[in-house]
């Protein structure tokens, strides 16, 4: 990353004379710092914090966005209590858990495996790495939508390939319409899309391990197996944690791909938390209720974000 070369700048080191200090006119550094930072903070306060505070207020009321003129009644923590004792919302959280756990598990195993292989530096690994990275850069919504075509029972490529391999009939199963298969349909697309993400971070982790450690292990005649478990994996672990946390947070709030693939269906078998929230907020227009739900999800993500930044800082010092 040293492409920030600076050929044009050849200032001589001049000792600071008192007269120079007077020449530095204009704003003081402190004023300039605030001048530079304030616009960003103001924008974030206006577009993120203000609405959030508003949502906290609404979560204590019976406000409905489609009946804005109805009198607003203060309900206290009623919505929170009803959400946190509602078995249906609890079920949605479990659907989310299934999605998060399996996607993160598959992506970590595949991603680390790929990174391990790419780290062998075979010929052309740069090009193939770029190709593997493509899916994660694409729009989850647009590509997720196309997967519904691949999943079509009779004409879809996915069904055809599975039928070809297993010898079953291609129209005998519906990835998106079946209660047991549809949770896996979204896991497959997410794993396809985000394995490269984990791979890229794991690759950085593997490359951060200095060669001399392996050389020392070799002197000690540690087997490859031993080296993997006592050097490679522990030293790459902070990076793996970083990827796991970020994918966990992202998939906890997953909306676009699931909305387009299944829309939460069939029934509510793939109704992850974001879909439940969207239905409550933008279909039933229970604004106060959905605000409370949003705050619950928000606090969860905020808590995880704290851990994520801690993991980020740990990796940064490597």
């Amino acid at each position, binding site marked *: 990353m040293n492409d920030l070369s600076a050929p044009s700048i050849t200032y001589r080191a001049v000792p600071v004379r008192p007269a120079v200090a007077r020449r530095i006119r204009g704003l003081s550094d402190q004023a300039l710092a605030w001048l530079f930072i304030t616009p960003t903070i103001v924008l974030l306060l206006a577009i993120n914090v203000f609405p959030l505070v508003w949502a906290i207020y609404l979560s204590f009321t019976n406000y409905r966005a489609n009946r804005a003129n109805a009198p607003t009644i203060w309900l206290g923590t009623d919505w*929170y209590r009803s959400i*946190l*004792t509602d*078995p249906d919302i*609890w079920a949605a*959280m*479990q659907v*989310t*858990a299934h999605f*998060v756990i399996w996607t993160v598990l598959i992506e970590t195993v595949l991603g680390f495996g790929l990174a391990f292989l790419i780290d062998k530096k075979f010929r052309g690994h740069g090009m193939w790495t770029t190709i593997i990275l493509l899916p994660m850069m694409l729009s989850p919504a647009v590509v997720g939508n196309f997967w519904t075509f691949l999943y079509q029972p009779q004409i879809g490529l996915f069904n055809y390939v599975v039928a070809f391999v297993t010898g079953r009939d291609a129209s005998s199963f519906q990835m998106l319409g079946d209660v047991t298969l549809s949770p896996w349909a979204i896991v497959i697309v997410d794993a396809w899309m985000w394995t490269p993400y984990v791979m890229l971070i794991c690759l950085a982790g593997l490359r951060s391990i200095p060669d001399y450690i392996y050389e020392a292990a070799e002197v000690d005649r540690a087997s490859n197996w031993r080296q993997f478990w006592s050097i490679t994996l522990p030293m790459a672990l902070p990076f793996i944690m970083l990827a796991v946390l970020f994918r966990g947070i992202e998939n906890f709030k997953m909306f676009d791909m699931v909305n387009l693939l299944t829309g939460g269906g069939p029934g509510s078998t793939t109704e992850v938390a974001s879909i439940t929230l969207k239905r409550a907020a933008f279909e039933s227009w229970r604004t106060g209720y959905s605000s409370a739900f949003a705050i*619950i999800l928000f*606090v*969860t993500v*905020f*808590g*995880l974000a*704290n*851990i994520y930044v*801690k993991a980020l800082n740990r990796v940064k010092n490597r």
Partner: protein
Amino acid sequence: MSRDANTSTLRRDLADRILRRGPLEAVATTIIAAGVVMLMQPFFLTLYSWSFAITLFGTVMFTIVSKVRE
């Protein structure tokens, strides 16, 4: 007498060792993680009901603890 002195130094040592950022952050992290697990576990509705309070507590604690000296 001597025992008194001993416990007070012990207490100070303990406070010094525990009331630091590292361990406190680890505790807060564990609490947040516990809250998240409670939110999504399929076993007990009661745990689910308390998950939000736990996560909120952990998050607030994390924010405060990150101000404690290193």
